[in-house]
């Protein structure tokens, strides 16, 4: 049974269609990346998963339970970090962390103090004096302090400095090792690449691509730079080659990742002097989808 199962999820805000038939599922122990530009529906999806918003159509199930009806039951086993953490200005960070842990229904031991040290937070300060990054830390500490079967993280590392981003990524790896599942919405592609097993891309309320990272790479192009002793003939018309630029016997082009093998064999026949390739990044994929209006699904 998948930990998260979303089927045909649709949500309108008045005339605005925020989600338009979203489907996705997160398997147990998986770290699932959810990426998309601002306003694409990431936070709306998460809020429906958490039962603070009600879907107009479709269903969201977590641990096999309905995310709206059984919200309280589900929340006992999940940890959530909102994208924009606002806190009560006159409570201290320590008080808020304790309150949050308590509200999850936990009485047992927790990793609160260890995490406060790792994230380097002063828990005696009032939340009103915290910077955005420090408020984010409060939410992170409260979330990772107790075990959860599912972590739902909405752009969790925005506002953290690079050192803290690293601590955060370690935390995610740790909970993954313990067998928890993670649903991570993010803008930061390197982070998604580093942490996630599976990725979905959402745009204007629709999932336009989803799969494992290696599956995704089939859809990307590799940038190549080749220098040969003899002129390479027929490269311009070779299947899968794009944006060719030629300077003497030096060629720069992009090639569909799936055609890479046969192309290298072909080029090899022209006596290669130098060959360089830049690996496909999620960035390329991202830009390819967001730049093209209504890019092919």
């Amino acid at each position: 049974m998948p930990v998260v199962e979303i089927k045909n999820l649709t949500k309108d805000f008045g005339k605005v269609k925020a989600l338009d038939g979203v489907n996705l599922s997160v398997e147990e122990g998986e770290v699932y990346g959810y990426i998309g530009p601002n306003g694409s529906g990431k936070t709306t999806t998460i809020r429906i998963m958490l039962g603070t918003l009600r879907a107009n159509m479709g269903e969201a199930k977590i641990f096999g339970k309905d995310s709206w009806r059984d919200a309280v039951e589900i929340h006992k086993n999940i940890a959530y970090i909102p994208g924009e953490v606002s806190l009560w200005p006159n409570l201290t960070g320590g008080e808020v962390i304790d309150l949050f842990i308590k509200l999850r229904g936990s009485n047992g031991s927790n990793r609160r103090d260890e995490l406060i040290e790792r994230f380097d937070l002063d828990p005696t300060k009032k939340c009103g004096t915290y910077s955005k990054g420090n408020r984010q830390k409060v939410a992170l500490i409260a979330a990772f302090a107790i075990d959860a079967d599912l972590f739902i993280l909405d752009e969790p590392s925005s506002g953290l400095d690079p050192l803290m981003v690293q601590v955060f990524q370690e935390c995610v790896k740790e909970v993954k090792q313990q067998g928890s599942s993670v649903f991570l919405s993010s803008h930061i592609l390197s982070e998604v690449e580093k942490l996630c097993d599976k990725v979905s891309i959402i745009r204007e309320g629709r999932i336009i691509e989803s799969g494992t990272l290696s599956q995704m790479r089939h859809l990307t192009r590799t940038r190549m730079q080749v220098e040969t002793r003899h002129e390479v003939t027929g490269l311009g018309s070779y299947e899968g080659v794009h944006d060719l630029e030629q300077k003497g016997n030096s060629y720069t082009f992009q090639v569909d990742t799936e055609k890479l093998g046969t192309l290298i064999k072909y080029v090899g026949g022209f006596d290669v002097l130098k060959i360089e390739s830049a690996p496909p990044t999620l960035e390329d994929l991202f830009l390819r989808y967001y730049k093209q209006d209504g890019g092919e699904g």
Partner: protein
Amino acid sequence: MLKGCFKNTGKYVQHILRRERLSISIWVLAIVILVLLLTIAYPELSPTEHERQIMAETMNNPAITAMFGPAYSLDDYHYGIMMGHQMLLVTALIVAIMNIILAARHTRGDEEDGLSELLRSLPVGKLSNLGAVAIVFLGTNVLMGLLIACGMTALNVEGVGFAGSLLYGAILAATGIFFACITILFAQINQNSRGVVGFSLAFLGISYLVRAIGDVGYETLSFISPLGWIGRAEPYASNNWWPVILMLGVAAMLFAAATYLNWIRDMGAGFLPEKKGASTASRFLQSPLGLAFRLQKTGIISWCIGVFVLGAMYGSVMGDLESYFDSMEFFKDLFPVIEGVSLTEQFIPMLMSIMAVLSTVPPLMFFLKLRTEEKKNLTEHLLTRAVSRRSLLSSYLLISILASIVIQFLAVVGLWATWIATTNEATSFITLLQAAAAYLPAIWIMIGFSVLLLGFWPKGTGVAWIYLAYSFFAVYIGEIIQLPEWVVKLSPFGHVSQIPVESMNYTMTALLTLMAIGLGIAGYVGYKNRDIQA
């Protein structure tokens, strides 16, 4: 070394004025209009010499002295004296609060937000900010004082002459300048603007208390408090100017001290160590209810004290009420003679209705705090943990309902305590308690109505306040100008038994309570089924 310290202060003044043109104008105009309206109102309230003398007698008691300051010139209690005795100190309090809020914003507030840093990186002197703030507040307060002085004189009310009015305006201006300077000084010491406002308001509150104790018994104490000086100016009688001069002199010293501290400290720094808060949550702060209470603790306590004082204020004049009513035609129309019921007893239901409407304000605030929390995305923290919407709503509702009971009770205790203390023949405590308790179902309907709004129309929770304002209008004004029956009956407060004139109508009480419960339940259903929305 001091060269260039005040560079571009003029431009800085313009900058502050441009940012605050609206709020300064609104504050100043509101205060001036308030003073002028009061000046017009007094002759309407007690038009004859005889009535003024009776008022003078009602005003000469310790409770009134504690509240308004010492009475003076009681043998010739004309309109000017009334203003100087009953209204000057209260107006001065408002002026002080205005100056505290604005001064804190432009000193520590700007520093906290990084605006001062931005400006200091430009060719602006180190002390320009402080200088500019001083100029703005000096100007604003002097302007306000002059407007008041000229306005009061121009109204041409008997006994309100130019010499007294000039002093009246000058006292208010000096009070404003004094509290602006106190705030500027605290802004150097304290590191955050909330603390600055807190310290300054505490200073104001303590000054008021010290003065109250001093005025009632130990006069030396009144000379310690700047608010005590105000009571010695006696405008329209002896016209003493020394309080104004003393206040301005001390203000200048405070400002000099603030300038020195500003000079020796770093940007963003203070002199008080930042107070450490608790690093763990207390046992109390472990549930939605504990959180809801903790967030509103200050508000709850302040309202309890405020309502008690309000009750006490009414209680202190109850003893003289009968003779007061006898002297005034106005009240004879309002309370026609009923056999076996004294005028005072007739007045109780009206008093209770006004107190009940006022006592509805805090429970509504405590409940609607839930909506404020939702707007700030703070309820999300609870609802995404193992907290159901029902228990979240119940936490706020419980505080609201308990507050409605406690606050009505405290109002009655205050009323009765000072009443029995000033005379020996107060209406029995039980009767008063019944009269107040009769209003509880009406208050609960208002709460139930706001639960309904929160459940079905969260963006429209403000309508609850409009309905309450309407109720105040219907009950209070309706009584005086005899509005049609249905206008009064549209408000739940119009259905309450008028104890002790009438006896308790239990059927109506039960009906009102049931209606409140019905509204509440509907609201719960709405809240459970709607989106949480910022």
